[in-house]
C-alpha cells in the first residue's frame, strides 16, 4: 500500500514551520514509528517534490509502548507512534505533527519537562516506608504504569503549560503515593498541593481517560486520588 506521510517540520523554536510530504510504500500493518524509522534510514531522504530533506526529528525508544517517548499528533490525535498502525487510520494520507501544548524543540519533538516538574511540585514521593495495602494493589499497580507520555494533557481542555493545573498525570500518579504514605504531615502537604494543582482545575471532561495509549483506568485513579486527598479516605 502506498501512503502519503505529511509531516509538520520546524528546525527550531525560532524558525518557520512548514509541511513536507513523503511517500511510504509498505505494509498497512506498519506502525507510524516504523514508517519514521524507514524514512530516516533513506540515504538521501527525499520529499515528494524530489528535494533532499533533513532527517525527521522525533523521539523513540522501546518501540513497544513501554517508554512513552514517541507521543505525537497522528491525524490530529495524540497517540504513540509505536502502537498506531497505518491500517487503523482513515485514508492513505497520514498527518504527523508535534504536540501543540508544549514548547517545540524540533520537528516532532517537544519539551515535556513540565510533566516531571509538576510531579515534583506535588511532592509525589514517600516519606515513610510503603504500607503495602493488599486491597489496593491493582490500582497502585496501574498508577505506576503511567508512561508520562503526555497524551492526556494534550487533549485536556484545562491544561496549559503556563497555568498551574497539572492534569490527569498528577491524579494518576498521586494515587499510589497518597494510598501508601503513612507520614501524616507529608500526606497533608501532598493533599493541599493536589487540591490546588489538580482538583480545583479539573473540568471532568475525561478526554484523558479515552486517550490514554496504554488504557490506564484514568477515571478510577482520579476518583480514588480525589477521595484520598480531598475527603481523606
Amino acid at each position: 500500500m502506498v501512503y502519503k506521510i505529511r509531516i509538520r517540520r520546524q528546525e527550531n523554536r525560532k524558525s518557520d514551520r512548514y509541511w513536507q510530504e513523503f511517500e511510504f510504500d509498505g505494509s498497512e500493518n506498519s506502525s507510524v514509528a516504523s514508517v519514521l524509522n524507514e524514512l530516516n534510514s533513506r540515504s538521501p531522504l527525499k520529499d515528494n517534490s524530489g528535494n533532499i530533506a533533513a532527517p525527521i526529528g522525533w523521539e523513540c525508544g522501546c518501540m513497544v509502548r513501554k517508554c512513552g517517548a514517541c507521543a505525537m499528533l497522528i491525524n490530529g490525535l495524540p497517540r504513540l507512534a509505536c502502537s498506531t498502525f497505518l491500517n487503523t487510520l482513515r485514508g492513505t494520507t497520514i498527518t504527523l505533527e508535534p504536540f501543540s501544548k508544549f514548547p517545540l524543540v524540533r520537528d516532532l519533538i517537544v519539551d515535556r519537562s513540565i510533566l516531571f516538574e509538576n510531579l515534583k511540585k506535588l511532592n509525589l514521593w514517600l516519606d515513610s516506608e510503603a504500607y503495602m495495602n493488599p486491597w489496593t494493589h491493582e490500582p497502585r499497580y496501574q498508577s505506576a504504569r503511567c508512561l508520562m507520555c503526555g497524551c492526556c494533557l494534550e487533549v485536556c481542555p484545562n491544561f496549559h503549560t503556563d497555568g498551574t493545573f497539572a492534569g490527569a498525570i498528577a491524579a494518576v500518579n498521586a494515587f499510589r503515593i497518597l494510598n501508601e504514605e503513612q507520614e501524616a504531615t507529608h500526606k497533608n502537604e501532598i493533599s493541599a498541593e493536589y487540591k490546588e494543582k489538580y482538583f480545583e482545575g479539573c473540568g471532568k471532561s475525561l478526554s484523558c481517560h479515552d486517550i490514554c495509549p496504554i488504557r490506564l483506568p484514568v477515571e478510577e485513579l482520579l476518583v480514588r486520588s480525589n477521595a484520598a486527598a480531598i475527603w481523606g479516605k
Partner: protein
Amino acid sequence: MSKTIIIIGAGLAGLSAALQAMENGCDVKLVSPFPSERAQSVMAEGGINAALNTKDEKDSPEEHFADTIKAAGGLADPNAVWGMTQAAPELVHWLLKLGVLFNMSGYDDVDLRNFGGQKKKRTAFAQSDTGKQIMTAMIDAVRQKEAAGTVERFSHHSFLTLRLCGNVCSGCVIRDEYSQEIMELPGDAVIIASGGMHGLFGNTTGSLSNTGEVTAELFRLGVPLANGEMIQYHPTTVECSGKRMLISEAARGEGGRLFATKDGQRWYFMEEKYPEMGNLMPRDITAREIWRISQESEVFLDMTEIPKEIISDKLSGLADDCMTYLHKDIQTEPVPVLPGIHYFMGGILVDEHHRTSIQNLYAAGECCAQYHGANRLGGNSLLGALYGGRVAAKSACEQAGGVNLSCAAQIDIPSAPQIAATKQLNKIMQEALGVVRNEDRLLKGIQAVQTLTGNLPLLGSAILNSALARKESRGAHWREDYPKRNDRDYLKTTVARFDGKQIQISFVPIPERR
C-alpha cells in the same frame, strides 16, 4: 564540602547509584538524554532474582551464586557475584519498602516464579512489567532528592566525552540536545550507567536510545572493553517494527512450551532433549537449539496451556503486547519465535568495586562487564543494575577525588555518527555475530568494518576482534570451528584495548574467590 558525583544515564543502574551516593553524603548530577521513564530498564519484564526462599524449596544465596557462575561459564568475578547474590534478598525487601508492586503470595510473602537456568523458584516479579514497576518506585524516591536539591537532573543532555588529565577524570562534557549547547561538567567522579551497546546492531530487543556511543567514546579514550563477544540472544523474540520484540522468559516460567514440527507432529524438542529443565534451560542453550531447528522447521512458543488466571495475574502485559503487535491471542494460538539479541554481558572493564582503568571513572549496569560472564541468567539484569549502581556509588563516594586542578583537562569531542553509516555497521555486525560464529564470517566482518570511520565502528571492530580471538565455545559465544570449551586457554576475561592506533586483544585471568 560534599563530593559531586556525575552519573551518566538515568535508568535503573543510574538511579540506584544516585540514591546510594545520597546515602553516602555525596551530591549528584544526573545526566541523561531522556527522562528515566524512557530508559531501557522499563522494558525489563520477567523479574529480579533473589533467594528469598518463600516457596519452601530450601533456596539460598549460595545456590543463586552457583547458578549464576555456572550460567556465566565461569567468566564472572566470583567475589562480585557473591556480593550480589548475598545482597539480593535485602534489595528486594528494600524495593518493597519503596512501594514496588511485586506480585505477592499470601499476605506478605513475595511471590516467586521459575526462570531459566535455575531449578528453584527465585524470580520476584510484578506481572510481566517488573522493570517498569521498579523504575516508577525508584523515580519517586529520586524525585524527593531532586526537590531537596541534592540531585540535579540534566535531562535532555548527552554525554560527549570525559574531562581528562592523563589518567585522571575530573568530570565530563555534555550537550543539551534541545539547544545544542555544549558545556563542561566538573565533578569528583563520573559513573557511567549508559546501557548496552544495542546501537551497534540496531535490531535488538533493547531500546533504540541505547546507542553504545558512550561506551564507544570511552573505548576510543583507551578504556578497555571486556568480553565484548558475549552477546546474549534471547531465545524467544519476534520481528516487530524493524527490531525484535521480546516474549519474556516468564512465558516459559509459567508453563509455556517450545515446539517445532517433526514427522508431521508437534515436537517439544527442549523437553525431550533436556528432561530435567526442559523449556527453562539457560538462554544460550535454548537460543542455540531454536536457531538450529529453525533452519528446517518453524519454532513456536505455545502458551495456550497456561491457565487463564495466570495470564491475567502474571502475564497480562505480555498477552497485551502479543495482541497489539502480532495480532495473536496467546490463549488460543502459539506464537512463532526466533532468537534475537537481547543483552550485552560484555562492556566496560570494571573491577569488583566497579572501578574502570581511569581514576575517578566508574561504570555500572549493562554498559559494564560484571556479574554475567559468558551468559546471563534471566532475572539477573535488574539485580545487577540495582546492586552494581550501589557498589559503584559507594566506591566513588569513598575513593574518588584528588583531582589536580592545575592540569587543564584535555577535551576532544567526537563527531556524531550518521544514520546511513550506522545502518551499514549494523548489517556487518548482524552478519558476523550471529547465534553461531566462525572465523570466515568474523574476518569478513573485520574487513568490512575497517571501511567505516568513527567511534561506533571502532567499538564494533573491538567486539569482532574479541570474538575472533576467543577460539572456543562458551556461553553465548559459539564458534562452529571451535565447538569445545577450552578452560586451559580461555577461562579468562577477553580484554580489548585501543592504544590510539590499533586494537589489542588479551586474555586476563578471572579473580580468585576469596
